[in-house]
């Protein structure tokens, strides 16, 4: 059981880094209701796993690991949190101006659309790359070697570029 002050600190850190949660939710879910379900599940899992956080890692590295693991499992199993016991404040409510990437023509959304087509682990890699994480940190989060990170990222970037270039023609 975590001490109350530890929990407060953890929740403060989660709140400060909510952008990470939102970006992961947007990369793995295209439907608004699913994004909200996933955000809720990620926060719960971060809170539950909090006592496992050690200063061996940066907080964001740990947070990316938990959030991406939850997102991949959520995406893979098509899990919906419809059975979650409602809290007094109800469901998390995300307000964004993002539309489903499949229906948008803007450049940034074209990129999102092709990212959405990637396999779960490749998606995690490119997300961390765009978040400007070092290869060392990406390797720690994903669990493969730095050389492997570099090789895979080159291939993924090439694939994204090809898809975008083809669409331009």
């Amino acid at each position, binding site marked *: 059981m975590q001490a109350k002050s530890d929990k407060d600190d953890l929740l403060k850190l989660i709140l400060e880094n909510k952008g990470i949660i939102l970006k992961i939710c947007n990369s793995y879910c295209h439907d608004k209701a699913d994004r909200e379900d996933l955000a809720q599940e990620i*926060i719960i899992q971060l809170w539950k796993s909090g006592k496992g956080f050690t200063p061996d890692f940066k907080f964001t590295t740990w947070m990316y690991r938990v959030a991406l693991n939850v997102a991949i499992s959520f995406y893979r*199993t098509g*899990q919906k949190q419809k059975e979650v016991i409602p*809290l007094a404040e109800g469901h998390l409510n995300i*307000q964004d*101006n993002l539309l489903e990437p499949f229906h948008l023509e803007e450049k*940034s959304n*074209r990129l999102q659309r092709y990212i959405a087509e990637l396999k779960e682990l490749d998606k995690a890699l490119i997300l961390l790359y765009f978040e400007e994480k070092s290869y060392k940190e990406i390797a720690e989060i994903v669990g493969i070697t730095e050389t492997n990170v570099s*090789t895979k990222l080159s291939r993924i970037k090439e694939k994204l570029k090809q898809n975008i270039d083809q669409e331009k023609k």
Partner: protein
Amino acid sequence: MEDNELKNMWKEYDRKIEESKILNLQSWVLNLQAFEYIKTEKAKSKLNALSRQKKWMIALGFVWLFFLIFLIVNSLEFSKAFFIISVGCIALFTLIAIVTYIRHVILIDEIDNSESLVETQEKAAKLQSSTLQTGRILFLQTPFYSTFFWSQQMITDAPLAFWTISFPIAIFFVWLSVWLYRNISFKNVNKKWFKILFSSSEWTSVTKALQYLEEINEFKKERG
């Protein structure tokens, strides 16, 4: 197209995300604390469903095992040697399956989302496909279902029928069960016989997990 162009596209999208808000995050999180949500929340994840399913199987396994032991204890005669050996072997495989299921339940509790993506995803997929691994072990007991009714009298009274029918059938089941034990693995998930054998809906999540394991193995490989 250069890498920078890709990064700029991402930054454009990133700006939109920065404008997004979780409207009730603060109050929702406060509730999370106030109600000790985690304590009361009934785990609904797929893995927990798998854990519940395995606990049921363990319970059923014990019932079956006790029944088999009951049969053995009540048949302790030399004339029923084939029956005792066959049922004993079936009981042994049932016990192995029960122990395997107990180990899986423990492993499910040990899944840690703060481990690396590859480690956690691999463990989860292995557990989801573990039903198949237990199935492999249980296939090994098949030959004993074709031998439990054998007796010395059956061999001496009707040797032709025994050596031309019963014995070859048992040998066939030995071959089949060993072959299945050796070949049921994610390496053969795309083979036609595998798809036919595990085509029913209850195996879908298991075969998907096997395919995912194959994907993870590919992902881990370093290629120049």
